[in-house]
């Protein structure tokens, strides 16, 4: 990758000054700090490694095996690798359709930071159009995997950073877009902070705004607090049944009784997200409606008006899975909600675009 290009957008996470790439590490001339680059080309700005998955050793072995393979060998062995390694799944780690939502924005020739990039399923397809992509994650194994895939695909405009979202090595006002998919809801769980999760989410959003250029876009993918599944007791993020729906105080009590900790993975309704983003100093909040979720959407509606959901289903259908009973019930539920013009309030998840305003008029509530 061209490190010169990245020198223009990366900065010392300590002093905010210019940092240089010196062969095997990034260094800050002002505070004399150094951050090594590992054998896969991942810049290590943190020592803290958080592995998300069931089999860390398996993932390390997979990466070791991939390193000895050519691109052709790897892509023709995906099925075998899926069977061998528990955490490796094409649809989760490689499927480029996970980045299809990026058509909602214009990322051409933009500098984009993908925060919580995981295995790079969004970062790598995005790099085909963006000028540069900075892929940040706290899991080194995922970044090593991302680096190898970028290499297999011949993608050179991507910089993998093992780092902390709260302490980013990015230059202020330099990002054209930042992506925050599946991350905002977890902010309350980071560290041992007893601070209110909403307060922490607001702080993060305000903090990220500083890195965006004026007119820069923040893209968020997150569940809807009023996800219909929550009404039948299903949850995400390891939440206890019904806790996303009930008032936060009651969720705290439920959680404390069972888990000995307060409820921390806050999600919001459509209006809740709009309010949160406005409080954090963003303007022009646009909401899109992905189905069945934001992680691997099959289709995305541009609006919750015009009964678009029903029109789409009538024309295209939902494929063979609609034979299953729970899909049929879900489909009927959404058709009814759409008919009542309530589809947008109860979609499973949202993809949200918010733009950095020139001057932040609103208080963040500090």
């Amino acid at each position: 990758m061209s490190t010169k290009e990245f020198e223009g957008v990366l900065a010392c996470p300590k002093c905010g000054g210019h940092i240089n790439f010196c062969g095997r590490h990034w260094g800050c001339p002002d505070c004399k700090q150094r951050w090594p680059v590992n054998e896969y080309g991942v810049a290590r700005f943190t020592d803290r490694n958080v592995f998300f998955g069931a089999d860390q050793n398996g993932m390390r072995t997979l990466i070791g095996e991939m390193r000895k393979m050519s691109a052709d060998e790897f892509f023709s062995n995906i099925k075998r690798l899926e069977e061998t390694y528990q955490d490796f799944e094409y649809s989760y780690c490689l499927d480029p359709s996970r980045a299809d939502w990026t058509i909602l924005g214009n990322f051409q020739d933009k500098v984009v930071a993908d925060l919580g990039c995981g295995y790079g399923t969004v970062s790598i397809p995005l790099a085909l159009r963006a000028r540069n992509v900075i892929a940040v994650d706290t899991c080194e194994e995922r970044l090593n995997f991302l680096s190898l895939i970028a290499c297999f695909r011949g993608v050179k405009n991507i910089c993998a950073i093992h780092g902390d979202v709260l302490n980013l090595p990015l230059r202020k006002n330099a990002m054209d877009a930042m992506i925050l998919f599946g991350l905002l809801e977890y902010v309350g769980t980071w560290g041992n902070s007893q601070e209110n999760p909403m307060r922490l989410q607001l702080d993060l959003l305000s903090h990220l705004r500083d890195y965006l250029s004026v007119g820069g876009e923040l893209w968020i993918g997150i569940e809807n607090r009023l996800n219909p599944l929550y009404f039948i007791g299903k949850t995400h993020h390891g939440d206890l049944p019904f806790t996303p729906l009930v008032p936060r105080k009651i969720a705290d009590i439920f959680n404390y009784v069972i888990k000995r900790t307060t409820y921390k993975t806050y999600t919001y309704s459509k209006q809740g997200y709009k309010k949160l983003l406005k409080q954090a100093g963003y303007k022009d909040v646009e909401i899109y409606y992905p189905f069945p979720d934001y992680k691997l959407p099959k289709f995305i509606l541009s609006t919750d008006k015009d009964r678009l959901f029903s029109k789409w289903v009538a024309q295209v259908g939902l494929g063979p899975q609609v034979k299953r009973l729970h899909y049929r019930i879900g489909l009927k539920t959404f058709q009814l909600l759409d008919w009542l013009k309530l589809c947008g309030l109860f979609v499973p998840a949202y993809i949200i675009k918010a733009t950095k305003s020139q001057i932040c008029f609103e208080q963040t509530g500090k």
Partner: protein
Amino acid sequence: MRELIAYAAGQILGVPKDDVSYVIHSGGRGESGFITVLFYYQSRCALVAKIARTYPQRVVSEYNNLVKLSRLLAGTELFKTIEKPYTLTPLSGYQILFKEFKEGIPGPRYLKAKTRDKNKIRKFLSLSVKWLIDFVTLTSDCRVNSYEAKKSALQTLTGSYGPTYFEAIAKDESIFVSPCHGDFVVSNVLFDTRREKGIDIIDFENFISVGFPTIDLISIIVDTGTTLFGLNDEMFFKTFLTRNWFALAVGEAVQNFCASCNIKPGTLISMLPLYSDRAIYLCKAWNMDELLPFHEKLREHFVDRQSEVVWQDQTTF
């Protein structure tokens, strides 16, 4: 998306962009797949935009194919059954193909909804094959049956000139090459309920000027069979080996096609393995690993049990 919406609304539909809503649909096939955007205006789908996920050349060739086809079929009834290409334009770093939206029930939905209605299934098959016969007849000026042209078409179709039966196909004087849909499957047939006998054909991304129409025919037969019976041996038996209403419908369609093209059903049966070799080649190229075992098994059947195909001699069927 703003740029895309503004273009679709302003340049193509000629309506205010705020009145246009859209749905983004993620297609399958991974890297080699497509994203489709359907634009809605005044409660109706008015336009389709197609974007290649990784290989922009694929929408460029689909656009060129549609332009070529439009010229080929201009002034005929068949012209109304294909998508009109509007434009191909670069926007937001993508090559975007804008084309007409064809309203109709997609084949798989039509067949699934009518699984128990044998007449409807017969109607679907006969209309699809009739479209194919009309297409082959209308493009008869483009037919070639030279050895070299067939050899080259075989190579294009499967990525190599390998199996021994290729030579027999290339040398068979009754087999010809001509323009072909290239992916004539159930999902690319739309049943237009507004027209009494109407079907529309979509997705000409694999259209080839020099291909085997017989492969299009085998393709729609196999795909109708798998849509009805699944990706299993039952499909092979019910479509090719046992005497039942569906095999009879297939037999009739084959007879009609063979009569219009002056080829023997036996010749068509000898080309069954070519269909499988093409399908296996595409499964690998399009990362459709889940379909590979089925097509490999089907190929074995097509090689080993050709003599048992019930509709090769309609008089005894």
